[in-house]
């Protein structure tokens, strides 16, 4: 035993150190993924007996208007959430100056990311609230008729995305601010000598150096858009009549909400959402792997 340990110590030690983490990761991430896939082939109310129904849940999903509404909203979320990246960059560049009290301004801009998403959601629902909401009154004053954003199927998703963008922009901004600290001053200097300024300076000199920050910003924004559950739940509960649902919320509604007794169907939605996320995640992993092996 001890002889075996002596000869293989270097090979075994990393695995021993990894073991607790791997165990937790298996227990709480990998195994539940397979359980979800397993449940998605069943008809189960979460309380009684589960019944194996094969791909019926997925067949039903293909013919479910609510599913397509959620999917469409997820795409809108994904597209509009990306605005956080340029907006965050803009604010970061704006704040990357040396003026007295700059730290205070930076922390003020960072503030929305610190407060909880639930609080953000509540604040924006009051902002949009009919009769007393600031935004409602502003619209009424400008156009003569107020619009209750969260009760109108045309605007509700956009209304929630705006609420989500507020903290997301702050997050992206902080990523870029740290990135800007690492921009090499000699390169900027050299570019200046060559007569670059304004847009050309930003595009050809600054941005290439910010690539790592941009990569992380895009990753967190994509993930943030796809798991947008809390704001939907707080602000509209999926309403009016389910028009602001996203996939993660629809899954919760089918499986776990007040009237949701369909674990199997909810799991099927979760599997589809997982598949969509996998497209992005494997893209990111592939890019990281490529970057690392190139070096």
């Amino acid at each position, binding site marked *: 035993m001890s002889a075996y340990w002596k000869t293989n110590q270097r090979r075994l030690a990393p695995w021993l150190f990894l073991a607790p983490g791997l165990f937790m990761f298996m227990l709480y991430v990998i195994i539940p993924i397979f359980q979800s896939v397993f449940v998605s082939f069943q008809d189960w*109310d979460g309380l009684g007996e589960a019944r194996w129904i094969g791909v019926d849940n997925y067949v039903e999903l293909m013919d479910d*208007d609510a599913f397509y509404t959620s999917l469409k909203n997820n795409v809108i979320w994904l597209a509009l959430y990306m605005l956080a990246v340029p907006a965050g960059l803009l604010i970061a560049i704006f704040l990357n100056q040396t003026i007295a009290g700059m730290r205070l301004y930076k922390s003020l801009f960072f503030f929305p990311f610190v407060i909880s998403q639930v609080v953000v959601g509540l604040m924006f629902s009051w902002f949009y609230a009919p009769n007393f909401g600031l935004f409602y009154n502003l619209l009424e004053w400008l156009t003569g008729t107020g619009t209750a954003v969260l009760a109108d199927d045309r605007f509700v998703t956009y209304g929630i995305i705006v609420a989500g963008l507020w903290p997301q922009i702050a997050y992206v901004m902080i990523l870029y601010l740290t990135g800007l600290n690492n921009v090499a001053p000699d390169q900027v200097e050299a570019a200046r000598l060559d007569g670059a300024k304004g847009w050309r300076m930003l595009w050809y000199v600054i941005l290439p150096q910010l690539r790592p920050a941009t990569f992380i910003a895009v990753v967190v924004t994509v993930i943030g858009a796809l798991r947008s559950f809390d704001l939907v739940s707080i602000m509209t509960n999926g309403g009016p009549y389910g028009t602001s649902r996203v996939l993660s919320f629809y899954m919760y509604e089918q499986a776990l909400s007040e009237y949701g007794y369909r674990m199997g169907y*909810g799991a099927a939605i979760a599997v589809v959402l997982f598949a969509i996320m996998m497209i992005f995640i494997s893209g990111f992993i592939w890019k990281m792997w490529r970057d690392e092996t190139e070096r």
Partner: protein
Amino acid sequence: MVHLARGALALTAALLLSTAASAQQRVLTFTTDNNDPAPKAAWEQLVADFEAENPDVDVQMNIMDREAYKTAIRNFLTSDPPDVANWYPANRMQPFVDAGLFLDISDVYADNDLNTQLASTLPIVTQDDKQWMVPYTYYQWGMYFNRTAYEQVDAAVPATWEEFLANCEKFKAAGIDCLTTGSSQLWPIAGIFDYLNLRTNGYEFHKALTNGEVPWTDDRVRATFAEWAKVLPYTTANHAAIDWQDAVPLIVQGKAANYVMGNFAVAAFKEGGMTDETLGFLPFPTINPDVPRAEEAPTDAVFIPAGAKNVDDAKKFMAFVARADVQTKLNTALGQLPVNAGATVGDDPFLQAGFEMLSTTPGGIAQFFDRDAPAEMAKVGMEGFQEFMVRPENLDAILDRLEKARARIYK
């Protein structure tokens, strides 16, 4: 998501209120969602009375948020069941009974003569020929209105739908919403649908519809929606953005005239400053004079979870809650109607009006849309009602969707 729900549950559990236990007493845990001030006080009084009668039992009451309770119940019934909890009978209890999470309390019914005392609600607590819950209260739904608003536009209290709609015209001219509601939690508008359907097609049809025996695309269902369409122009515009509590001030301030609600709302109206003189109650107006009048009166009940640890005392508690004198006292405090036939109704004018209305109902008494119909149908249905109220032009698509759901749910 399961972890998220568990986390929420743990958080709620940490916020629970509980009374102090002493070592010699047997503990009876009671989880409830009666977190509004008046019901909470009423239940605390009932628990105190029970403890006075049974000094060897210590009841620990855990009060949870009402909306959160509706999802938490599935977790705590399977993981850590209390000895007693409250829930809704009929279709809302059915999945739990099917899953074996409720304790059969037929013996409590037999030993305490409850089959006769609670005879009126026996059908909704009975499944597989056994009794599972003890109902303690019910309350009428109907139309609550602001008398001052009626006087302001010189409108008479309507008895028929035509009169009601004629009044709406007057209210509109005065800039008052004829009918208000808050549909962001969906269930308040299910009350409107239930009444419109009961008045248009009658109790038997409504029962068949919620039991899934009639297609949603049936012409009689369309007739109900046609009546609903008539009142939509006079309904509060942003109802989808507000809760039922948010619509209460509209009635109190006279910005809206009528509100289809359950009698529990009276407490909220009075808290806002209305009195027996300014607040009025009228049974939902007659639409089709040929159908016998039917009403809506949901019942609330307590039960013993199958995993209860202190079953003996829990059964004592069941028998206690079922008793006529206990129900009289509890419901006077709740401002609702007792179920026990031997109990007396409080002398509040709204209670008296409701009791009078319900006890003379020739047609039948419906529970509520989400109790008469299975949970999944209720959810799809109420969403459809909300969509109809905002986009009445989508009616065909909505009914097709409900019909598709019916075909799937009632297999």
